[in-house]
């Protein structure tokens, strides 16, 4: 029977905060790592300034490897590394390293794709001006690919929200974890509904904010 009286709202509040903390922490680090990685992937691809078959293949392989490991496995396999990095493998802090390791390669690919949309003529024109590679990246490639990069950040943020649901395995809490433990395992359908609705609102807000930013930066 569904009655919302039995819900412990402070649990829900804490879970929401945990989800937001995991999301914002891991998203910032994912962008900080994935963006340069995506730029390097692009620059090393055939026909670009650092064109290097071996480097591109090697990086691609690592990126694909990390993308193909199921997150739940990554979460467990990474425990020693997580402890080394942040001192604990538990809680919100313990969940962030695996979240970043899962999301950064995914985001890097999206960045590489966005950069590929920048016209050949544009890249040649900027190179022909006497630009250094740094100028090329900062003044041309990233500004030109900004709408695609922002769309990539949005997709990555939404993916991270669903990854956080599994972070309960390491005791990180969050809305997804609450939905599994109470909603699913204890048959508390009301908790299930509330958490799913909150996740839906979160995803919807992320998507709307992302779309708005993409539109703001689109000049084509």
């Amino acid at each position, binding site marked *: 029977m569904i009655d919302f009286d039995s819900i412990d709202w402070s649990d829900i509040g804490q879970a929401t905060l945990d989800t937001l903390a995991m999301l914002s922490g891991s998203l910032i680090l994912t962008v900080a790592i994935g963006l340069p990685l995506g730029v390097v992937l692009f620059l090393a691809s*055939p*026909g670009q300034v650092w064109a290097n078959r071996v480097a591109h293949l090697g990086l691609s392989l690592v990126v694909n490897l990390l993308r193909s490991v199921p997150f739940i496995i990554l979460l467990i396999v990474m425990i020693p590394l997580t402890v080394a990095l942040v001192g604990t493998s538990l809680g919100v802090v313990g969940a962030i390293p695996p979240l970043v390791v899962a999301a950064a390669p995914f985001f890097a690919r999206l960045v590489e794709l966005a950069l590929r949309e920048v*016209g050949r*003529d*544009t*890249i*040649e*024109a*900027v*190179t*022909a*001006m*006497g*630009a*250094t590679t740094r*100028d090329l990246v900062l*003044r*041309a490639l990233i*500004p*030109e690919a*900004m709408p695609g990069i922002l769309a990539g950040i949005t997709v990555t943020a939404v993916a991270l929200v669903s990854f956080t649901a599994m972070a309960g395995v390491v005791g990180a809490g969050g809305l997804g974890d609450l939905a599994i433990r109470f909603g699913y395992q204890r048959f508390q359908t009301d908790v299930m509904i509330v958490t799913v609705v909150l996740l839906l609102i979160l995803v919807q807000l992320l998507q709307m904010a992302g779309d708005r930013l993409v539109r703001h*930066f689109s*000049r*084509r």
Partner: protein
Amino acid sequence: MIQFESVAKTFTTGGLPALHDVTLSIAASEIFGVIGRSGAGKSTLVRLINGLERPSSGRVVVDGQDVGAARPADMRALRRRVGMIFQQFGLLSSATVADNMALPLRIAGVPADARKARVADLLDRVGLAAHGHKYPGQLSGGQKQRVGIARAIAGDARILLCDEATSALDPETTRDILSLIADLNRDLGLTIVMITHEMEVVREVCDRVAVLDAGRLVETGPVADIFLRPQAAETRRLLAQAGEGHADHADFPGRVVRLTFEGDAIAQPVLTRVARETGVDLVVLGGHIGRFRQGRYGQLTLGVTGDAEAAVAALATYGAVS
């Protein structure tokens, strides 16, 4: 200004077409055209000038700098003296017209106030003074190319490379852009290298032209010589395909002659006078009257019935008969 010394370029993987043993010299302040069908190596040739490609063998010397041997800093310095414009313009769609023009200055480290003044000059120079705040997406093709040109000369370039710069534009806009390019050549003494498959472009603005075929330089010379008196079979084929040469008129029952005339002769009543004096009948089978940068010219294919020898002799007083 620009020398190619036995330059060859080969590519290990696909990409641009190769070049074989190209020797070529382009003088300061001339407008030099490079024609050839697609895949002839025109793009490769022009990209060797600003080091977007490096020669596999031979030397390319631009403004005293050996491009193939240039270290990165020298290469960037050279590129700041060599502007380039593109078929698809290559503008930053995320930056305004003014910011696009300012980009090479920013890269060269020009301070903000000097940059602003220079951009204002450039906007005037290319006739876009009212459009500085717009984004490229809001401009027409011709306006975009004007932005491209302003950006290419922003850093006081000595050389302007044009890679099919008018090929995406309609004929009227093409003429506007070409006259802007000719003005820059006249006012600033810019050396201009234009690669194009459009023969009219070369005819209208170039001083000299080189013909490329399958990566080889088949002919180089003043525009009038190449267009009116092509020596190489490849050049004749190229011109004929572009409608510049003359088709066969084997079905004409009399003698077929070709008359090429330049300068004053263009304004004279050549055909009626020859017909009257020699009593022949003349049929115009093809041809055109046009203009080179250096002057007007005409080229006619005539069918002659009657005393052909007398007609040829009379025609020869006005121009070259073949």
